[in-house]
């Protein structure tokens, strides 16, 4: 992106600071979405400055930046919507978690999806723990009680799943992840976010 040239060093500083904040606010986006967003902001600032050349450059810059608003606030909706697009098209858990983080206040479904995400993370971690602590992790079932997960007092004789525990946890984790993505796709279709 070509930066705008200013005559006044204070203007340059204010502008650079604003663009840096925009870059920070959009850093979770894909490179293409981020570039598109920054280009449009830059273009708007430039057009405003060009339209007001008769008045003070710094004052004009401050006015247009004030009109555009605080990047952290005004870009929130854009970032949240773009993150959902990314989460449902890339099948990357990182984007799903980020999309839910940015949309958590946008409705009860996002809270529900966050809980589902927490579950798929837990099932995945259980698979990992099974490999690290094979004796302490599993589905222990005796006559009077049962225990699913990690325990400090393992009872290997009563562990039901054995070798299949880790693969089963991975499958459940993957299914929960896919469920989250498909629900998110459904919300996106209904809301057209």
């Amino acid at each position: 992106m070509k930066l705008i040239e200013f005559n006044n060093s204070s203007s340059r500083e204010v502008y650079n600071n604003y663009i840096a904040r925009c870059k920070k606010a959009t850093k979770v986006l894909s490179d293409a979405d981020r570039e598109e967003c920054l280009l449009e902001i830059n273009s708007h600032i430039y057009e405003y400055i060009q339209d007001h050349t008769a008045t003070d450059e710094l004052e004009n810059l401050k006015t247009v930046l004030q009109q555009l608003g605080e990047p952290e606030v005004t870009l929130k909706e854009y970032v949240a919507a773009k993150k959902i697009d990314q989460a449902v098209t890339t099948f990357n858990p990182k984007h799903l978690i980020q999309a839910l983080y940015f949309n958590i206040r946008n409705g009860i479904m996002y809270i529900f999806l966050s809980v589902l995400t927490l579950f798929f993370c837990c099932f995945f971690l259980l698979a990992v723990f099974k490999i690290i602590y094979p004796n302490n992790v599993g589905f222990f079932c005796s006559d009077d009680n049962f225990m699913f997960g990690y325990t400090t007092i393992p009872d290997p004789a009563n562990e039901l799943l054995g070798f299949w525990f880790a693969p089963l946890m991975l499958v459940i984790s993957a299914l929960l992840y896919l469920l989250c993505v498909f629900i998110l796709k459904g919300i996106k279709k209904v809301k057209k976010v």
Partner: protein
Amino acid sequence: MKEDFLKNWDTQLKKGLLPLFVLQALRNKECYGYELIQELKSAAGIDISEGTIYPLLIRLMKEELLHYKWVEQPSGIPRKYYSISQEGKKCLTEMKKSLETTHSKIRKL
């Protein structure tokens, strides 16, 4: 008190009609963001903030009512030109019909 009420009502009305204003403005000619704000201000007297217009443009594009293209400029800073799609034109016609129906209902009262 009455003036405040009317002013508030007028603001809400214009806010609700904003997608129609934007589609109508872009039906006449394609515009870049800053130009569209100026167009709405000069032709329709709507003082719209940047924080409102850009999210609205994004929503209208998601609905496939608008298209956009980047056009390189001699300055090296390209402009993002928005234009109305066929779907947008159909939608605009329906919106205008709905507005006329509402208007005629008010007159009948």
